[in-house]
């Protein structure tokens, strides 16, 4: 986790790309990205924003749940890979909270850029339903890593941008090369120019500002935008893959990514093997969760659980998992450590497993017969 100095270039991709579908997001966010990309990447080397970012940080301590989740998420990624010994799950709270704060700092900075730079202050988070529906399909964990407020802002901006534009981004960039050149003749500078950019996202094409001392023909502009998009995504990947802060260069980074993906796939294989040995009787999965949740929430559902048969409907499972995650998040809010939360999850499941197994004695027999064989592979795995 690069907690020390999150650079703005990292923030922006995490911001934009974490909202929803990649392809959609890149198209819709390209009004945003080239504008900062061209004029602002150089200028964001960072001083004017640092003070503001500190101010924003002050606003966020009210969201410890997010910090915990973000930290836990990052801790999980590192713990899984096993390469990141510094920030591990067993580490003390301060480190995790700090990593969470780092993420929050990132998000806050991104929010700052997004809110002030491009769309002015007029955009309020009016509609939550729209972003929610859009986001429904895409990766949940990406959204985990983004602050909710910031997300609303970006998604709303994205939606607005998407509605206003129809053409593909690459073509648009080429088109904008010509009109841009005229503008560039007048003011070809490195400056931020946020104010002038504020109105442009709603036009049909993307304005790319040429940097000082660089070529202004449409091809090189488009290429530069493309390269910057790629570098933004690489930076996002750098955040995902643990232990990649120091690595610069596309080839080495790709190496790390490949290794990480292969490691994750191997882990899935290993876990499925473990599941196969551990679990001969899979029928009581649903009972577990159902009974667990009812136990946690209120006594009345608990009595229901005792009477329920083994086949839960999907709706029930829905509510169970919903409650489970809510509970987990509420546990997060109370600042419990990541490992404890995970173990609490197991703990609750297990307390109720006990009660539910009291009813299903017949399942005990096959597992007992398996038990002798199970124990030995289990033993090996644990060692």
């Amino acid at each position: 986790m690069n907690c020390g100095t999150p650079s703005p270039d990292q923030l922006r991709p995490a911001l934009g790309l974490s909202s929803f579908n990649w392809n959609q997001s890149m198209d819709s966010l390209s009004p945003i990205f080239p504008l900062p990309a061209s004029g602002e990447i150089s200028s964001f080397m960072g001083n004017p924003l640092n003070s503001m970012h500190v101010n924003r940080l002050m606003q966020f301590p009210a969201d410890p749940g997010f910090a915990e989740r973000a930290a836990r998420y990052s801790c999980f990624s590192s713990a899984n890979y096993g390469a990141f010994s510094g920030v591990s799950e067993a580490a003390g709270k301060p480190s995790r909270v700090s990593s969470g704060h780092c993420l929050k700092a990132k998000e806050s900075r991104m929010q700052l850029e997004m809110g002030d730079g491009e769309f002015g202050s007029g955009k309020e988070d009016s509609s939550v339903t729209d972003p929610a529906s859009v986001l429904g399909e895409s990766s949940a964990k990406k959204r985990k890593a983004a602050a909710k407020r910031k997300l609303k802002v970006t998604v709303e901006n994205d939606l607005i941008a998407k509605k206003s534009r129809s053409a593909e981004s690459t073509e648009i960039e080429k088109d904008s090369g010509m009109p841009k050149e005229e503008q560039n003749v007048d003011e070809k500078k490195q400056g931020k120019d946020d104010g002038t950019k504020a109105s442009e996202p709603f036009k049909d094409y993307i304005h790319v500002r040429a940097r000082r001392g660089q070529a202004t023909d449409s091809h090189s502009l488009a290429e530069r935008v493309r390269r910057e998009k790629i570098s933004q995504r690489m930076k996002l990947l750098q955040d995902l893959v643990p232990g990649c802060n120091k690595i610069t260069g596309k080839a080495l980074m790709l190496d790390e990514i490949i290794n990480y993906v292969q490691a994750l796939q191997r882990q899935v294989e290993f876990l499925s093997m473990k599941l196969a040995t551990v679990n001969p009787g899979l029928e009581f999965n649903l009972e577990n969760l159902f009974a667990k949740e009812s136990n946690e929430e209120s006594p009345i559902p608990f009595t229901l659980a005792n009477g329920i048969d083994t086949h839960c409907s999907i709706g029930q499972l829905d509510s169970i998992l919903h409650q489970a995650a809510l509970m987990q998040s509420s546990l997060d809010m109370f600042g419990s450590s990541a490992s404890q939360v995970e173990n609490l999850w197991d703990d609750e499941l297990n307390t109720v497993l006990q009660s539910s197994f009291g009813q299903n004695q017949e399942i005990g027999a096959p597992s007992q017969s398996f038990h002798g064989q199970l124990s030995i592979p289990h033993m090996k795995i644990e060692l």
Partner: protein
Amino acid sequence: MQAADLSFHRIFLKTMFMGLKLGVSSRKMSYQERKRVIKLSANIAMAVAGNGMNWSRALIIRHAKHEKNKVLLRSLLGRKRYESITEPGFAPLNFTWQKMIMKRRFRRTNSILRRGAHASNGATARVIARSMAKKRTRTLKSLVPGGESLDDLSLLGETIDYVISLQTQVHLMRLLTEVLSVSNLRQTLPQGLQGTLGLSNSWLPTRILMSGSVDYMGGSPLS
């Protein structure tokens, strides 16, 4: 955001449980078969939860090619969805292998010629770097499902999403194994022993490891 995590986890677990339930008949299954079904369920669950992404569809298609999986897939996804996904209409995934091999050969010979011509330039390092990056992009394409027909930029986007869902999958499966292993433990040990081991109360991570040894001890009188 909470709802978002929730939906991914929920969809994953739901699909995985359904798949396990449908696929595993605990009587006659061999270990290999069970492992295959579990892995299939996990991958399909991940693909269903990561809906809307290119890799998710490609992953489902990849699994649907094997004959053994078709029944399970059909019942998991629902007939309509299965049909719509496996219809061969999606253009980027329609690449025939021969076309790709030809393309690759053409590209390779071309680049070799070009490299030979410009080898004397000072830009050799850049050329080498570019070929390294290309090679790695190719392996990444082979790793990420459905990545063969993507360009660089979208390939990176897909890998980001794929990595995140892989992490979630590993996390959830690990939780599942822990829970189920403990449940097995609880079942076989008598209540008194469970109390002394402190299994019914607060749960420390070390106990997960301990459960291995306890399993062993618990197994011998029964076997």
